[in-house]
């Protein structure tokens, strides 16, 4: 379907498609098998200016919006969402700086990311603070001209690989939601280390580690925005980033339809290619219908979000749920269409099905997303 993209958006799609076809697809199985971080691929993404997409032009970026990053992530996700997650997590890591950082901070941290020289990570989750972000234990205390950070972040994407980390810590527990703040921690800061790489079911090309702060000292000016505005910035960050996760779902969905339909044309049983059987056709048709419906919602949500509307949270949650549930369903069905071959590691859909699962979990579980949509509906209809 034609979504009437602008000329610039077509360029983003072309570049991301070329990286996906030439650099990601030929290497994805090996990266998955070896749990290997795709440093070379990220370097070529940097060279192609993909990291510059969400960064404002005054800091060397492209000044792109939500739809621009969605288009890039959809293509990358078609190749491997492990690789694409490393890319997406860097964008997530810099959003708090884009949203709330000072001009000086933006210059210092956004410029090298736009140039593809450094990338970022976002540290929110902890052992006791997943869906419930109010359970955060990590603290930051001002000590003279320095902040003293203590605590441990868990399951942080790009841990040990990123150079720039945005980290949420409690600065005043008595103030509840207004007691959290965001800090920039750099690789090599005293008292900061990363744990060993976690062993995961899917997205194995991405790196996931703990971030450990033991009397970690950072300069006073590493506070992002004002003290106590951490949660608000986190919420705004996630509202902007969730359509990107939805886009990864679109990428997997498209790859699964492509793989399953191609296989069904070639595979002959009972004297016919299996695509000639209605049972298989219906599976493929449902996959294609759900994919296209999700794409329409994700693209229009992303465009809507670019206008910074009041109902941003609701729309962003809606598209995340739809596209990622679709990715799980469509990847499972792609394995079904391909039967025993689909279950084997020689074919890519087995990995896609393992990878798809994380999309329903990270950046807010799909249950939490439904809560957001439900609560917004509750609010809307209370006013009527």
């Amino acid at each position, binding site marked *: 379907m034609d979504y009437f993209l602008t*000329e*610039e958006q077509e*360029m*983003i799609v*072309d*570049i991301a498609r*070329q*990286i996906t076809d*030439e*650099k990601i697809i030929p290497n994805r199985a090996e990266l998955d098998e070896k749990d290997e971080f795709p440093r070379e691929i990220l370097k*070529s993404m940097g*060279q*192609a*200016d*993909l990291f*510059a*997409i969400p960064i404002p032009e005054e800091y060397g970026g*492209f000044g792109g919006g939500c739809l621009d990053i969605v288009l890039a992530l959809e293509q990358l996700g078609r190749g491997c969402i492990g690789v694409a997650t490393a890319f997406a997590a860097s964008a997530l890591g810099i959003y708090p700086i884009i949203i709330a950082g000072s001009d000086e901070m933006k210059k210092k941290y956004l410029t090298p990311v736009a140039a593809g020289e450094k990338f970022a990570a976002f540290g929110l989750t902890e052992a006791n603070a997943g869906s419930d972000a109010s359970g955060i234990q990590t603290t930051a205390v001002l000590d003279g001209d320095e902040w003293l950070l203590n605590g441990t972040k868990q399951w942080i994407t790009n841990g040990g690989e990123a150079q720039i980390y945005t980290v949420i810590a409690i600065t005043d527990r008595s103030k509840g939601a207004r007691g959290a703040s965001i800090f920039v921690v750099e690789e090599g800061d005293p008292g900061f280390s990363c744990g060993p790489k976690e062993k995961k079911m899917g997205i194995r090309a991405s790196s996931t580690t703990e971030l450990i702060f033991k009397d970690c000292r950072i300069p006073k000016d590493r506070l992002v925005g004002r003290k106590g505005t951490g949660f608000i910035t986190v919420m705004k960050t996630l509202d902007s980033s969730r359509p990107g996760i939805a886009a990864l779902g679109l990428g997997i969905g498209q790859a699964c339809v492509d793989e399953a339909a191609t296989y069904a044309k070639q595979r002959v049983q009972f004297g016919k290619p299996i695509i000639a059987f209605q049972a298989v056709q219906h599976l493929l048709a449902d996959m294609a219908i759900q994919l296209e419906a999700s794409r329409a919602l994700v693209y229009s949500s992303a465009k809507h979000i670019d206008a910074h509307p009041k109902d941003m949270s609701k729309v962003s949650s809606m598209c995340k749920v739809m596209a990622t549930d679709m990715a799980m369903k469509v990847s499972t069905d792609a394995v079904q269409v391909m039967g025993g071959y689909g279950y084997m590691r020689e074919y890519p859909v087995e990995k896609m099905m393992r990878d798809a699962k994380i999309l329903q979990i990270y950046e807010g579980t799909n249950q939490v997303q439904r809560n957001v949509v439900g609560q917004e509906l509750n609010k809307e209809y209370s006013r009527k």
Partner: protein
Amino acid sequence: MKIIVCIKQVPDAKDVRLDPETNTLAREGVQSIMNPYDQHALEEAVRLKEQLGGEVTVLSMGPPQAEEVLRQAISCGADRGVLISDRAFAGADTWATSYTLAKAVNKIGDFDLILCGKQAIDGDTAQVGPGLAIQLEIPFITCIQKVREADEKHLVMERMMDDGYDVVSVQYPVLLTVVKDLNEPRVPSLKGKMKSKKAKIEMLTAADVGADAACIGLAGSPTQVVDVFPPPPRGERAILTGNIDEQVEQLVAKLATYL
């Protein structure tokens, strides 16, 4: 550093057919791409520019639509695109092409280094790079597989040989032809693509470069293609199966039919 990269637009090798009437390459409806070897030449030129500073000019001889590959080169880091295009160039062999490119290079002006792909995947002659160097009266080194050192004065490189490689040190000006082992070409960048859209491609005709009409196109070509034909089909082949004794038996029976 002033670097010129010669680039040819060629039909995509995945899609090559011969026109049965004329026995020439059928170009209608065939996707055109930048000659793959030239992509490696361009990548090395852009890397040298990033390392040493300077300017990369891409030069192509071809029909007006060859402008596309020059824009593609700009999106990958080239600064300036020059297309030499004239109906009078049609049918040029490698000598006439080398002559014409040399005229265009002289028109472009100063250069330190010229990079070419080892050969184009359509003609497969590997003669135009060296031919251009001869016309320009500069040294050339073919089949570069690695640049070891580069500075403003000289280059140290590896030249691919049948067994192993030679290490060659050379001063500018020089023309190099490159093989695919040299590097991995980059994907165009977003900023490069936007620049390439707006870039003005300089168009040169035979008259613009002062080419002698007797040295260009089919008329100026010392070689003429008399005939092009597909290789004869290979003979019948069969794979024998079974254990060794059975296979030997089958083979002997088969050979006996030829007696």
